């Protein structure tokens, strides 16, 4: 359908593009307009690559049936790797969290990506996060320990708490990553909330 603007010109595809760009987080009508003009006027090749990239990603990417992360195959490369320890399963909220864990070189097990967290105020509960799929994955008979690496926000803590209870009830060993001061962190420059929690979570030291 062609929309006629006040000046009388028809620009339906431009309007549509601007409207489409607004689905990006934090992009309002003004920045969407800027982006659209930039792509069309100054960087048509970039625009083509963007369109192509989006289309192929949408076509090819699905969720790995083992870890729930994005994957082009039914089961992703990491989940089929012989070099990973399949007895350890680390649960993270988002794909970027798995990337952060990988950068530590401290973990060689497998992941499960929740693609979110419990967020009662936003109506995100166990059904929206497909907890049942995670339970089926963790109870494959190979996993011995589940490591909860959800964020230390209220939502991440709620998620960790309920997953811990429910996975324990299914006979699994469950652990939670520790929280405290960052490495190299100085008390003087750390926020009070972090220091308070590090104090409460203190442990024996010999």
């Amino acid at each position: 359908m062609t929309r006629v603007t006040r000046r009388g010109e028809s620009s339906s595809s431009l309007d549509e593009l601007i409207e489409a760009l607004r689905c990006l987080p934090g992009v309002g009508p003004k920045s969407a307009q800027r982006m659209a003009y930039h792509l069309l006027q100054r960087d048509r090749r970039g625009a083509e690559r963007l369109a192509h990239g989006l289309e192929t990603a949408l076509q090819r990417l699905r969720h790995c049936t083992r870890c729930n992360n994005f994957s082009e195959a039914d089961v992703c490369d990491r989940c089929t790797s012989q070099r990973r320890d399949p007895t350890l399963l680390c649960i993270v909220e988002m794909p970027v969290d798995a990337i952060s864990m990988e950068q530590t070189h401290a973990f060689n097990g497998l992941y499960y990506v929740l693609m979110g967290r419990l967020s009662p105020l936003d109506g995100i509960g166990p059904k929206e996060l497909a907890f049942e799929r995670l339970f089926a994955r963790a109870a494959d008979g190979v996993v011995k320990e589940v490591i909860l690496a959800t964020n230390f926000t209220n939502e991440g803590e709620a998620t960790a708490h309920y997953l811990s209870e429910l996975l324990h009830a299914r006979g699994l060993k469950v652990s939670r990553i520790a929280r405290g001061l960052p490495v190299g962190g100085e008390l003087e420059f750390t926020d009070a909330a972090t220091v308070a929690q590090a104090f409460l979570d203190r442990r024996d030291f010999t």
Partner: protein
Amino acid sequence: MSGKQRIDAEPAYVLHLHPYSETSLVVDVFSRCHGRVPLLARGARRPRSAMRGTLMAFQPLELGWFGSGEVKTLAKAEWMGGVPLLTGRCLLLGYYLNELLMKMLPREDAHPALYDAYGEALMALAQGSADAPELRRFEKTLLKELGYGLTLDVDADSGAPIATEAQYCYLVERGPVAKVDAGDTPMLSGKTLLDMAADDYTDPRTRQQSKQLMRQLIAHHMGGKPLHSRRVFVELQEL
């Protein structure tokens, strides 16, 4: 409360955070003297933001803000401490309190008494008490502050004082009436009503019946709007 304002060191709690852009947040805040206010926290989503760890729900804060529009700009956030982080069931109940405030309280309406009742309920939850009298007191204060105060001492029909041993049903927007045939309205003992008036929740039956009454009244005053936090809570118990 329009016009330019600058607020300093105002006791407040964060009710909810929404991402606003790649780097900023809109914080729904419940403050003691200015009620519920949305504040824009610029840069609070940046990795090294000093505000990032401070803007936590269920924690007493002192906030400073300025601005004249509907959404003010957060200038300062100070962590007051003293309340342990909520965990487990109690954390879920905390979300329930926040959802009630977000859905029932109009913006920029000061309710210091409700603020104090909220703080006490949070403290009880932080200490792991999921069935605390403070929760009922919070709900009671919430309804009262919104102008839906409960009648707990007299029969709304006859005006007679409530009798401990008698059975009543509570009619929304009227009060308790001694009546046997009340359809699906749950029955309450006179003692429950008098206990609630006195904020005495030691009797297990009072605890159970008052919880049910509050649920019924809140559902009515929410006008059919669903409570997400309750649904999620129930779903988690069912797993």
